[in-house]
């Protein structure tokens, strides 16, 4: 059975770029679409941003709450702690 997509929409700016890179690295099935002023990312069932991956890319500590600054929208349940930000469907 195919899983429903979760969705994350970010502003197309400098701060979102490393997040997209981290997402692509840790979520093999994520699809990234560039739209006017925004980036839409979908992934079957689940999508995770790992703080560890982000920190490797940007070379400093990264708090998942920094996502608040570039987040436009999402679809799915949220699970967040200091080391990850995850969106998932429970079905």
């Amino acid at each position, binding site marked *: 059975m195919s899983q429903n997509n979760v969705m994350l929409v970010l502003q197309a700016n400098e701060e979102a770029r490393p997040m997209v890179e981290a997402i692509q690295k840790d979520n093999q099935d994520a699809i990234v679409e560039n739209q006017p*002023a925004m980036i839409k990312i979908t992934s079957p069932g689940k999508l995770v941003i790992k703080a560890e991956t982000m920190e490797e890319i940007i070379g400093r500590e990264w708090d998942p709450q920094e996502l608040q600054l570039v987040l436009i929208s999402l679809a799915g349940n949220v699970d967040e702690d200091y080391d990850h930000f995850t969106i998932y469907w429970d*079905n």
Partner: protein
Amino acid sequence: MTMNTKNRKKRLNMKEKYKHMTRLGWETSYQDMDKVFPYDNYEGIKIHDWEAWEDPFRMTMDSYWKYQGEKDKKLYAIIDAFAQNNAQKNITDARYVSALKLFLTGVSPLEYQAHRGFAHVARNFRGDGPRVACQMQAIDELRHVQTQIHTLSHYNKHFNGFSEFAHWHDRVWYLSVPKSFFDDARTAGPFEFMIAIGFSFEYVLTNLLFVPFMSGAAYNGDMATVTFGFSAQSDEARHMTLGLQAIKFMLEQDPANVPIVQGWIDKWTWRGYKVLGLVSMMMDYMLPESPQSWKEAWELYFEENTVALFKDLERYGIKVPDCAGTVAAEKDHLSHQIWMTFYTHGAAAPFHTWLPDEKKMDWLSEKYPDTFDKYYRPVYEHWAKLEKEGKRYYSEMLPQLCQTCQIPMLYTEIEKGEPTQIAHRHTIFNGERFHFCSDHCKDIFENEPEKYTHAWMPVQQIFQGNCGGATLPEVLDWYKVKFGTDNLDYVGSEDEATWKQWHGQE
């Protein structure tokens, strides 16, 4: 500089921190808890453990202020740059500005109403988890209305149709649609308000308002609007999560809550959908360059995401709202029927209307292959012919309004396969006849007739002599809409003259 990112600073985990920073309530002893929180049990929702409430973002006040402050700094930097560079000259076309007028008059005042609503429920839930979350949302909503007014005040320096937005929201006929939507939600109990605004509007529908519209603003060169839109939307993502948490919390607390919640989902998905009709028209007709049609946005943000969402809620016994079939049938027609209504009533609205040109009509044919050429293009061609003969058609009749959603009876029997037949339902309550645009609006009325008989219906109020007089000029005076300045066609307007002067197209 060397930094080992593997060794992160040790600190309280987020869950613990969230608990310490948000559980600030106590059992009252001088007064009975039921007297301190009188509103959170009369709706029939049973809560056994308020502690089970948890914000998935684990947002606490310290990080809230930090991130909101950063967002505002970015936003105001862009607004300043926009104004300093006279960037209003760089939008695609001044027709686009009418979409902003509709936004400021129809949407921004709702942000304020949402602020009032969330402040109210934040006081009235006895659990401190939802209280803190609703309090933050109340502050967010106040921020939204302020940033929107600040951003659009720049357009007010150069274009008509912005100056009296607050006054218009309270008086102008079609603005009673969004206004009454929020009045309805704010006069409900706190749990219904959470399902109405937190879940149905924020989670299920708000993407349709902000995402494609703001992406459209970017597509039309309006960086200021994009920025306030996305800055607000970053809060919306948090609100959506709150809405989803609220519904799950209610469903998990007691099985008796399920049918009550289902009734609210059915009601508020339909109410929200009707309000968003204005957005369908903005997307398909008012953006000179449209990145996406209403139908495409609907399919993506409603149909696709909603299927997944309701599959998630299935385990509680919740099903897809019963209006889903109607809204699916209407997506090929909605924006056309609404724009046609505004085109014909353009004398009584404080923004400009126009006929779609050939290029726009070809785009609409492509996006709506089953309906546009068959039902709508011929009407536009007819009106274009009349315009050419100097007989531009304005309706002088006041429309019949639906008692529930307050939208003129413009919708047709699409679900029944009769898209040219106006839909009309009615019911008798206390010896008086009330009219409706649809079965869903009729059902909502019949469920709480005492509430909806109190509605302030603009057309009835005009006929009763409560709106300045019985003629259009008198009513427009009462609205503070300047005839020939704020209303009528874009072609021939001051807005058009300004635009042409800027671009050397005298």
